[in-house]
């Protein structure tokens, strides 16, 4: 079982300089490993640092101290020591990220938004369009919406466009932040299928899922981000390991 992400002694604090230097301690000394073909779920109370940890794995947030190693081109690369070019290369080839809320450039059509990761890898337009269309169909985004920018879509539709963009390219590592939050049961099921297919391709998935059913359908391991706050974690772990 190949490890794809190794987090050692990760600490994150936010210092708000313009609010009197207030320090928000998010987490302290986290050790965490994500393996290929497994879905590691980040679990914890709201505000415990799950998204912060996920964003740190994408180099969107900077750690205060500690190390994040990711497997990239068959080597271990330390994220905080990497320069901009390296990070952009890692994001292009090795790590995909589905954020909690769709954030896109305005005036770009849904189809182009979904195609973007493939175009960035140099895949030809025709192939990119075909793959994007298939995914959008699977996620029940009506074809009449494909030429429209997603900015005016419903929350659930936007999230499905976000998911399509996240799953379209073959990333060895996929980070998912609440991918089914705005979705009904039918569409949640499609996302579970997509996740299972990715796991079968040996993708390492790290995800945050508030929906108990989805979590139980996909989780291989649970990582509690801030164990000081006791929750129903014991029951959860028992059910997963059964």
């Amino acid at each position, binding site marked *: 079982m190949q490890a794809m992400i190794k987090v050692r002694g990760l600490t994150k604090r936010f210092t708000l300089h313009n609010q009197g230097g207030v320090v928000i301690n998010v987490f302290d000394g986290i050790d965490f490993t994500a393996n290929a073909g497994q879905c590691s779920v980040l679990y914890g109370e709201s505000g415990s640092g799950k998204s912060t940890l996920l964003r740190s794995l994408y180099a969107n947030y900077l750690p205060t101290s500690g190390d994040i190693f990711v497997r990239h081109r068959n080597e271990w690369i330390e994220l905080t020591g990497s320069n*901009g070019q390296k990070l952009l290369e890692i994001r292009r080839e090795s790590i995909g990220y589905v954020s909690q809320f769709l954030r896109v*450039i305005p005036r770009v059509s849904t189809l182009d938004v979904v195609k973007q990761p493939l175009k960035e890898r140099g895949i030809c337009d025709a192939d990119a369009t075909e793959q994007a269309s298939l995914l959008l169909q699977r996620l029940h985004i009506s074809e009449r919406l494909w030429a429209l920018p997603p900015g005016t879509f419903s929350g659930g539709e936007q999230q499905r466009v976000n998911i399509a963009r996240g799953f379209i390219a073959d990333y060895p590592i996929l980070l998912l932040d609440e991918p089914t939050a705005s979705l009904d049961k039918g569409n949640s099921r499609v996302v579970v299928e997509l996740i299972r297919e990715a796991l079968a391709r040996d993708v390492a998935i790290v995800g945050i899922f508030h929906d108990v059913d989805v979590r139980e359908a996909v989780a291989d391991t649970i990582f509690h981000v801030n164990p000081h706050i006791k929750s129903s974690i014991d029951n959860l772990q028992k059910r997963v390991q059964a």
Partner: protein
Amino acid sequence: MNETLTQSSTQNEPLLDVKQLTKLYSAGKGCIDINFDLYPGEVLGIVGESGSGKSTLLNTLSARLPPDQGSINYRQANGDWINLYQLPEAQQRHLQRTEWGIVHQHARDGLRMGVSGGANIGERLMATGNRHYGDLRATALRWMKDVELDVSRIDDKPTTYSGGMQQRLQIARNLVTHPRLIFMDEPTGGLDVSVQARLLDLLRNLVTEMGLAVIIVTHDLAVARLLAQRLIVMRQGRIVETGLTDQVLDDPQHPYTQLLVSSVLTP
């Protein structure tokens, strides 16, 4: 075999290498100890408020303002590195007209207002030896279409164009020699929002299609987020923070960056 090796190695080599660059008008006014590099096809945003030194930096980088200290090394199309301010002026100007482009905030600074739109676009080609009228006109027409300018205006002087059209003409004028590096200073400053939006879309598409490296100075963080992959934040002449655009804007470390990010209406 050797060709592919050099190609992949030059993809990882910077285009521009700036070291300890300093240009001061007086204490704290200008740019101080600037260090960064720029890679092919990359958009680097320089953000900061008025007086941060960003325009001084841009002028120094584009060979229009000799620095007091430091060096700017540029890797030419043929792979050779040159030290910018060790070049004779004539060669600097040649660089500015062929491999580089400069898009000014005020189109008047970047256009020849006394000649037609078409002549503005053709000027760089003429400067590099192309004299065939038919070719020049055809090229000008093509570029006007690419930057979404009404081709019927080709013989009109830029004084008759709107602000947005003048900016598009400036862009076309620069891109006609397929430059590798473009310097832009507040390219959408002062334009109406809808005009700005379309211009930004155009810039974004051109950068991707042509694989341009761009250094864009802007005080508008939304423009920076839209166009730049990496950001440099300047304050009082110095770089206070640098990193990937989304990281600098989502998790700003420096007090000044935090202030900037918290000040905008929609970052």
